[in-house]
């Protein structure tokens, strides 16, 4: 009797495990179809990443705005992470006040082209005072000035096949990507100003990404290229960003 029970238990547990695995496969397939599958969805940790990304995508389907603050709430202290680029190319451009800087926008767009800083600054400027947290734990409130990414994307004409926006820094190992809902979000900026002034070199001059609903690591500095793709599988290591390969997650809306 006892043996029978254990065998039955064993069989049910086995069946449950198989069903669970099949269920996971199906869930991953469905998640991918709806755009709920983050590029670093592989492995055990990927299950948690997918649950977080998918559930937040559903909750944020109304294009919610990050809270904005008043000028008086701007933090006195706003630390900077990372070192400025050391390449000659960057140094030369900075000496020229970035007059020769080009931001390329290509991939699945109707009219791929590059933009100079003068052009970017000629577009309707917006500003936002938002909270930015670092995954390390600290945070600050600051004013960002720039042009919404959606403005530039609409200029080049995004193809209907495009699902992701990959973006690259002049620092070769720093790149990231986001989905179209984040890219078209009104608070996603190509920022060239900070607290009323031009971005300093330490802060990402001449232009950086600013993603208000994710942690600071998404705000790639020294932007040189933005590329629209239908899949991130074949973009560099296929993990959607430089972060997963060094052990950090791709999606940081946390």
């Amino acid at each position, binding site marked *: 009797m006892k043996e029978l029970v254990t065998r039955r238990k064993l069989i049910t547990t086995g069946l449950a495990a198989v069903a669970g695995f099949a269920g996971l496969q199906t869930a991953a397939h469905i998640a991918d179809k709806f755009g709920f599958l983050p590029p670093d969805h592989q492995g*055990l*940790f990927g*299950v*948690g*990443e997918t*649950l*977080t990304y998918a559930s*937040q995508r559903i*909750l*944020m389907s*109304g294009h*919610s*705005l*990050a*809270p904005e*603050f008043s000028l008086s*709430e701007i*933090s*006195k*202290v*706003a*630390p900077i992470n990372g070192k400025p680029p050391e390449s000659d190319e960057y140094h030369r451009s900075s000496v020229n006040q970035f007059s020769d800087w080009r931001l390329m926008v290509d991939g699945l767009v109707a009219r791929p082209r590059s933009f100079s800083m003068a052009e970017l600054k000629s577009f309707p400027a917006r500003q936002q005072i938002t*909270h*930015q*947290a*670092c*995954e*390390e*734990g*600290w*945070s*600050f*409130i600051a004013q960002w000035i720039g042009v919404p990414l959606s403005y530039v994307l609409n200029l080049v004409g995004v193809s209907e096949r495009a699902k992701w926006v990959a973006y690259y820094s002049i620092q070769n190992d720093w790149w990231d990507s986001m989905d179209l809902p984040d890219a078209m979000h009104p608070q996603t900026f190509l920022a060239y100003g900070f607290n009323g002034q031009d971005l300093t070199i330490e802060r990402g001059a001449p232009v950086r990404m600013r993603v*208000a*609903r*994710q*942690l600071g690591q998404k705000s790639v500095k020294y932007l040189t290229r933005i590329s629209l793709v239908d899949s991130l599988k074949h973009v560099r290591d296929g993990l959607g960003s430089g*972060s997963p390969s*060094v*052990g*950090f*997650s791709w999606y940081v*809306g*946390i």
Partner: protein
Amino acid sequence: MAQSDSVPALTVPISALVGSRRHSAIVRITHWVNAISFLALLVSGIGILLAHPRLYWGETGAVGGPSLIDLPLPFVLDISVINIRGPSRYLHFLSAWVCILTGLMYIISGLITRHFRTELLPSRFHLAWHSLAGTISNHLHFRRPPEEEALSYNVLQRLAYLTVVFIFFPLIIWTGLAMSPALSSVFPWLRTVFGGQQSARTIHFFVAVSLVLFLVVHIVMVIRAGFRARMRAMITGHSSASRTTK
């Protein structure tokens, strides 16, 4: 079976419990799954905290500005030798999902089976002064619990478990969610009720410390009450009292 007289709030006589289980299957499964997820959350939480062991109050906080508490811990930021923080973050959010889902399962089943009402909510008898004083005195004198406590929870256990289930866990989950920039765009009140993102982070830390203190006392009590019997009860469901009467 004279024991049944001394078991307050136990509506069935012990004879009826013979062969029955001390802990239901759902309580045992959610207990152990949650125990594993809590340990994973704790270890990974320390890994994340070490990047910035400094606590603030309000919306923002950073080195160079005022802090609430500077924890006597090193800043572990270098990931070139070993990256603790990144994998800790992956593990933290995965275990948080496990913790929340098992917690929901436990809460829903507890409401349906009336587990909270019959086994955790203290009765008027429990809260009467002489009963309360007796239980507290037993604990202060480190007396081994009376035999009947193998079948029911005493008032301090009930209050401790209710606090953990209905205050500490909801609060630590809430403050965890409140730190998310994405969720705070949908539900700004998640963090504004605490005064900001950094306040939520600080409360998250102190609730974690409270849960660790609970865990330590919990384990000490299990050892005091008879480690093997209590572990058996939480693993197989059978308590020693119902075994001996078999």
